[in-house]
């Protein structure tokens, strides 16, 4: 049983590492700043997630009891990843994007980031 759990922990760590690597490779490969935000927000969540599950299992295995920090890390990750992506996207739209490529809002107002009159 212990050996099986250890194999599971090791497999999770490898899985997490692989996804972290793929995410970083995506940052290098993709050409457009908006495209690069995708691997940074998504392909890495499973990387961190798998490492956290491995951490919980390992602590149970060595008899240290249940650790709650992993739940908090997951919570904060899900709170911060979309927000930092949103801020990066807004900065990109404001500083270096031609507003003409954006679709119309479909309402009377413009996109919030754009300066008035564009």
């Amino acid at each position, binding site marked *: 049983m212990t050996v099986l759990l250890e194999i599971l922990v090791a497999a999770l760590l490898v899985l997490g590492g692989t996804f972290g690597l793929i995410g970083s490779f995506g940052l290098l490969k993709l050409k457009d700043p908006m495209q690069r935000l995708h691997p940074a927000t998504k392909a890495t969540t499973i990387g961190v997630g798998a490492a956290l599950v491995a951490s919980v299992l390992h602590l149970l295995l060595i008899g240290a009891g249940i650790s709650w920090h992993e739940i908090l890390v997951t919570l904060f990750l*899900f709170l911060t990843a979309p927000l930092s992506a949103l801020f990066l996207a*807004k900065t990109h739209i404001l500083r270096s994007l031609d507003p003409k490529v954006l679709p119309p809002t479909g309402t009377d107002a413009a996109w919030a980031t754009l300066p008035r009159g564009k």
Partner: protein
Amino acid sequence: MKRLFPHPVLSLALAALWILLVNHWTLGSLVLSLILATLIPLLSARWWPYRPVIRRPLGLIPYTLLVLRDVIVANFQVARIILFLPNDRIRSAWISVPLDLTSPEAISLLAGTITMTPGTLTADVSADGRALLVHSLHAPDPDAIRDEIKTRYESRLKRIFE
């Protein structure tokens, strides 16, 4: 009681957060969590004049499970696009998603969900809060993505919040 705990849910969340953060079940950390749960809502009260209304809080549980499942799927999809799709065949697109939701909390939750799930990312909101600007990594059919966001996530959030 209402003066001491103007926002009971926030107080409970803060106390739980502190206890999880200390990771030890001792009387001392319980007392400190109660002190924090009392002080922080009192000191920050002026920044949240309105309180979120959640019509059906229990609906958040199946929604969370659905999103977690989609996040895992999203990881594999994005990984596949990165590894196996040549750059010149990736069709990225901007999509404007009109909103039926009106509650700011529901819209924030929808925006966060869009960022965490398959191939899409929330980039902006219209100045009147009636539409979201979404960027899709690989969208051969942008309209299908817009419809999926509306039926899969927005309709569920609408049932929970409004």
